[in-house]
């Protein structure tokens, strides 16, 4: 069996784990990061994309609000290319308690969240689709953040400093020698081969799965309470500002414009299983109704895709099992040397995407102390690869580039303006045959047609580039179609159902992919 040796083994390739890998590599440690799936395929990649200003927590959780605004200001600089400065409104709709608005303003003042009250008429001029019945509006520095881009920038930055990033490597055992954790054994998804990784310190950054990893290390009582929430992407930016209901945080109270779409979130249901991704129909209806309260006509727009994310929340004595939103969103760093007398192992979980850098900093400060050399953190000021110029992302960057290259640049995904060269470069760099990996990287197939036109093209290009067998290419295509269906069937109505029908015509009719040789042995029941 092959063996790797490293200073820090990070388990979990979400924003926190990738942040730890980046922080550790900047401190000069040797790092290996493993994830059972693709990077940011779990909770990180399944949220609404909001880079919090802190306003959401200003009343309920002032410490979280302070952390958010602090990190918001840092990420705008170090991850500028991943952040779009859309700004945010907190609006009092006719459905909200009008008394909350003053509490909100006070909370923002006390926690240092920049907040300016503006006239509803001004807000409605900026966002004409907002509910005209809004009575108060506060402007805050919300932004959106492309989490896949961020996580890959973190991973790439770490790689440039020698880190080894191993997506699709699942932990099968944690190595423990007496009271010392010495690393882990992982299994590669593609090859099935196992690999032993020896590490001076192992960081459990597996989020909602942290309890499972701690169990493997023989550490008891790390209990993460998974809170499952659904999000729905609508087919265009119905608003260009992040819109929050000015009320105590609840379900369906945020709409985040994200690239070419906008995302409404979220629900919050207790679940036992962090891999629970089912979408209850009543939650879809609730989300659409909540959207209607913020943007009248929301239900008439086209929903593109629905997904669930599972928040890793720590149990708190104040909260019952069924009310996960009341559990603190602050992160938890468990130093198992102090907690359990087990050396070489720390767990970082809880928290929120906006504070991933801080979580990584705290983690690596503890790890560095254990290493005995207390190296300083530099992630507050070191820009991620791609963000060196400090310019935030502008919607329209892709279109601007395309307009300059009408003759030379072939577009493969029209919805998201993904050019052929970019697709080819990404396939080569990632060395992946999974079109869903490419989707996360480039947003390929994430627009209104959900891959109807681009996925045949991308399959052809994937096959041509890699000397991939036709059988593998067919498998990639079919897996993409099945994966897409999981995210679309619960929200198929109106024009998106028409689109789904057109896509069925293309794949099942024109291309007849279901009768490719040997790929689908079972016949389709009719």
């Amino acid at each position, binding site marked *: 069996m092959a063996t790797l040796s490293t200073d820090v083994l990070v388990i979990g390739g979400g924003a926190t784990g990738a942040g730890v890998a980046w922080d550790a590599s900047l401190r000069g440690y040797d790092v290996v990061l493993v994830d059972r799936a693709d990077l940011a395929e779990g909770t990180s990649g399944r949220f609404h994309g909001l880079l919090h200003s802190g306003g959401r927590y200003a009343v309920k959780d002032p410490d979280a609000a302070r952390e958010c605004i602090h990190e918001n200001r840092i990420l705008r600089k170090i991850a500028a290319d991943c952040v779009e400065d859309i700004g945010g409104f907190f609006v009092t709709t006719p459905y909200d308690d009008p008394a909350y608005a003053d509490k909100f303003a006070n909370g923002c003042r006390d926690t240092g969240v920049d907040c300016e009250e503006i006239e509803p008429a001004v807000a409605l001029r900026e966002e004409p689709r907002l509910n005209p019945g809004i009575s108060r509006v506060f402007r805050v520095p919300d932004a959106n953040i492309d989490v896949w881009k961020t996580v890959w920038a973190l991973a790439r930055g770490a790689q440039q400093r020698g880190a080894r990033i191993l997506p699709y490597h699942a932990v099968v055992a944690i190595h423990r020698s007496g009271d010392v954790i010495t690393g882990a054994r992982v299994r590669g998804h593609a090859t099935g081969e196992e690999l032993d990784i020896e590490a001076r310190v192992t960081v459990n950054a597996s989020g909602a799965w942290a309890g499972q990893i701690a169990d493997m290390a023989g550490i008891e009582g790390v209990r993460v309470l998974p809170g499952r929430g659904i999000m729905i992407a609508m087919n265009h930016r119905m608003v260009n500002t992040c819109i929050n209901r000015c009320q105590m945080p609840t379900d369906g109270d945020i709409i985040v414009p994200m690239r070419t779409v906008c995302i409404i979130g979220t629900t919050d249901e207790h679940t036992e299983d962090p891999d629970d991704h089912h979408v209850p129909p009543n939650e879809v209806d609730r989300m659409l109704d909540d959207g209607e309260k913020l943007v009248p006509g929301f239900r008439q727009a086209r929903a593109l895709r629905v997904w669930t994310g599972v928040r890793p929340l720590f149990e708190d004595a104040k909260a019952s099992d069924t009310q996960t939103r009341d559990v603190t969103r602050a992160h938890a760093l468990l130093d198992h040397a102090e907690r359990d007398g087990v050396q070489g192992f720390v767990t970082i979980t809880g928290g929120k995407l906006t504070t991933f850098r801080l979580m990584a900093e705290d983690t690596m400060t503890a790890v560095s102390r254990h290493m005995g050399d207390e190296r300083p953190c530099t992630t507050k000021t070191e820009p991620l690869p791609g963000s060196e110029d400090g310019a935030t992302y502008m919607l329209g960057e892709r279109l601007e580039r395309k307009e300059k290259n009408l003759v030379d640049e072939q577009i493969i995904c029209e919805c998201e303006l993904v050019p052929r060269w970019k697709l080819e470069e990404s396939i080569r760099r990632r060395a992946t045959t999974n079109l869903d990996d490419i989707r996360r990287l480039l947003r390929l197939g994430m627009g209104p047609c959900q891959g109807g036109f681009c996925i045949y093209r991308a399959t052809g290009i994937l096959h041509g580039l890699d000397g991939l067998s036709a059988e593998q290419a067919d498998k990639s295509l079919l897996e993409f179609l099945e994966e897409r269906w999981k995210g679309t069937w619960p929200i198929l109505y109106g024009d998106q159902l028409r689109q789904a029908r057109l896509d069925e015509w293309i794949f099942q009719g024109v291309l007849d992919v279901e009768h490719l040789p040997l790929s689908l042995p079972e016949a389709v*029941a009719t």
Partner: protein
Amino acid sequence: MRGELHYDAVVIGGGTAGMVAGARLAEGGARVCVLAKGVGSTHLAPGTIDVLGYAPERVTAPLVALGDLVAARPDHPYALLGADAVVESARWLQARVESGPLPGYRYVGDLERNHLFPTAVGALRPSALVPETMAHGDGESLERMCVVGTRALRDFHPALCAANLGREGIAARWVEAEIEVDKADQNALGLARRFDDPAWRAAFAGRLALKLQADESVGLPAMLGIRDPHGAWADLEHRLGRPVFEIPTLPPSVPGMRLYEILRAALRGAGGRLVLGAEVVSAQRAGSRVTSVATRAAGHDAAYAAPWFVHAAGGLGSGAIELDSDWVTHDRVLGLPLRGVPGPDEPRFLPDYRAEQPMSRVGVAVDAQLRAEGAENVLVAGAALPGAISWREGSGEGIALASGSRAAQLVLSAGGAHAEAA
């Protein structure tokens, strides 16, 4: 409103079913108007005439399998139409193709036996009748072939096509042909226009010939001419000295657009009228009869009155039938009762992509004479009919042809009496 326009029959929908119904009504002497929101299924489908491809196993003899299907599924449109109607309407279509606006172009094959033709991904797909430009792609007689693509066309990937055909036992290799373009995002239609130009074609053939090996047929994406496909295809076969055939790919479908031109010429040649961009937005009724429909077209609204209407506006795919966000399914065209809609407590879709989806067979409820439930002078044709999953069955054109033809016959045989009564 500019006042009502009066016709003997108004057909709603400009896909295959609506155009066939309109053309056959016009040929039968009716004053007919086809109202279409836009072009229909023709531009999306491969341009083949598929009667029954899967039931659910691959079908070799479509007419025989059609009989078995009808016995097993009495709610299927073919149960109302019968095999004879399919045969008759396919003959009619072949005749219209041959007398149509594309000189020399024709459909070949017969309904007794499906043949297998390559798709752009390299699957073999069963069809009964195909344009002559595809005929040499018959998978059973193909031995050695070369799939020819061009980087200029992102909608066709010859290496993948050839590799999958190889897995089907066909000795297929692939080459890329150079085509210079003035913009990077070409589709098959843009390239098809070039194949109409004999000089351009000759140069293309000259370059391609250098890359070919002896004794191999040539498969190209379906783009061999839009105005003169017979000329383009025959010329390429002649210049390359070997069988050449088209392989259908992503929309817009060039062979489908040819079929649309043929049907439009048949309609107009017989005196029928086609109004594009005319979405039906409301209908007037008198009891159980629809008396007129209103359209909203660019610039003005118009109303069309007739003793007979043919609803050939399609199903969920065209938007004629809609599932709205309150999960109510309705006919947006005439508000007619539907069949095949899952009950309020039943699932509409299932998590398994490959499963038969409960919403798949939704359509406008009809009686045995294609008459819409609750509207005695409305006949239903094509994808608006309930009971078929045409994209999986490979039955779309068979149903469209037979039901469009049947609707026309029913109007023609009964319409005179009604017109007099009115």
